[in-house]
């Protein structure tokens, strides 16, 4: 019984993270050209990322949607690296997401207010 609960919670948590991951990645890239490994490190610092492998297909999809573009940069250690940056479309997209996020955050905070106060 306990096991099943944990599984469900983990699944729900993963779903929540997945939703905001795209938003956060775009936000990080918005700060300037960046190498995926650094994106991963940033995400890990904030405990948002569980599976690193998730990032690559996501970046690829954002690139296909022409929200991102990348260029090759020579590296001192190892093969050349991809550096990602936002396209104009990407910046628009991020603005939209940002707006939605704030609306969501507001909605969430209203709806979970009782939950948070009663817990204390």
């Amino acid at each position, binding site marked *: 019984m306990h096991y099943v609960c944990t599984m469900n919670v983990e699944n729900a948590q*993963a779903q929540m993270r*997945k939703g905001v991951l795209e938003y956060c990645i775009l936000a990080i890239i918005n700060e300037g050209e960046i190498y*995926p*490994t650094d994106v*991963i490190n940033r995400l890990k610092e904030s405990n948002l990322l*569980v*599976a*690193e*492998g*998730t990032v*690559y*297909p*996501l*970046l*690829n*999809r954002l*690139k*296909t949607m022409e929200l991102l573009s990348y260029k090759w940069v020579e590296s001192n*250690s*190892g*093969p050349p690296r*991809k550096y990602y940056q936002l396209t104009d479309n990407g910046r628009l997209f991020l603005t939209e997401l940002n707006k939605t996020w704030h609306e969501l955050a507001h909605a969430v905070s209203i709806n979970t207010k009782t939950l948070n106060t009663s817990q204390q």
Partner: protein
Amino acid sequence: MNKLLYVNIGGVVFQIDESAYQQLDNYLNSIRRKYQNSPDGDEIIKDIEHRIAELMYERVGERGAITGKHVEEIISVMGKPEDFDGNTEQFEKTNTYEEPVYKTGGSKFFRDKENNVLGGVCAGFGARFDIDPLWIRLAFLVSFFAAGTGFLLYIILWAIIPEAKTTAEKLEMRGEKIDINNIEKTVKDGAKQFGKKVNEFGEEVKQTFSKEHIDKTKRNAGDFIEDVAQTLRPVFQTVVKIFVFGALIVSLLIVVVTGIELLTNWGSDFSEIQFFGNHITEGSDQAWLLITCAIALFIIPLIGIIFSSVKYLLGVKRKTKFVSASLGLLWTACLLVVIYLGITIGRNFKYESAVSAKLQLTQPVSETMYVKLQSVKLPLSDNSIVNWSIKKDHEDDSLIFKQINIEIEKSLDTAFVVIINKTARGYDRANAKNNAQFFNYNVIQSSDSVINIPSLVTIGETEKWRDQSVEILIRVPQNKNIVIDDALDFYLDHNEYTAGLKDIELFNNKLKMTSTGLKPVN
């Protein structure tokens, strides 16, 4: 011992051990499967490989050696492909990455000592086929009661299958799940591969026999044979496997049937062995030893066959010298015991001796002697006993047999004479003579013209069987008559006196002794 490979991942070269390589390859393949229909699949894989190379570099540096442990760590950092972002819905649905699945060609079996009850054999099988070990345990338990087949098999598997010790082995132990899809896939793959091979072979043959290639063929004959061998190898392997499987089943069956036979006859066999000990060997201890060793002589090679066929079929390459050596030693010991006992018993049959006695006869007034068979009542309703067979009398453990011969000769004077020759064997002449002297066989004249021949020789409960036999000579004077009962058919030895007679004339018919032998009176 682990094979080391070199791999180039994301443009960086690493050393990696074989099992770790397999793990990694499986992982990348599962990602590849997920993105196989996506136009950017290759790019995603490349990016991920790139990251894996970074993670490896962090751990071992350039040209460092990657182990299964590293790969496991990296896989857990990267996550399962089904958690990855999919381009469209369908990928998420159709492609899930389960616990690492290792296709090992069905050749890796390990015992799982972490989930064991006894030796972890069932747990290992469960892991290998992704079945709850409980079912396998149940199957074994059921077969335990089939005369211990399961027990025997379990012990053998325990001895053969190595324990999963390293992480890589523990991972390899976990095989593919058996379900319909999987079986179908295996069969399809096998058929495809076979078909391909046959096609290649056909092409090869076509090319080889086309005129332009004749010369080349001569040069490449060696290669050609090599190719044929290569093509036929899987076929041969399959045939060998089927054969080995057959040998395994047959051996198991024989061992089990023998086991059942021994178990079910346990009680009655006691008396059989007692009987054997009383009459042939020196007591039942010796009989026990002889029978046990004789059975072992026959069972041990079968166990050896079962052992090695299981080993072959499971593809276990573990050295089992200890087991084969002890089986061999045991077998040799049994052989020596059997030989020794054989010689001991054989010695008791070394010399032969005979004792001759003349029966006190009253001469028949009618000048005709009737020879009849006196049936010794058989406690067993077995009429199939022929001359040589030995039977056990269940009532008193005495031994009965039909080693009796009758010959009719011409008397030297005018009187009927009956001579009884008793023969037996022994470890020396005196012993043989003694053995011949002391077994009972009484021919009785019941009236002046009738001689009764007992149909069987009986040896008492504690007397030894030493190839005792009886020869009865009946001498008929010239011009006197004899009538032989047809029941004596089996006992009568033909000689010059009976030579010219057909059975129909010989038996139940008055015969007169003439100068040239017996002749019918009418």
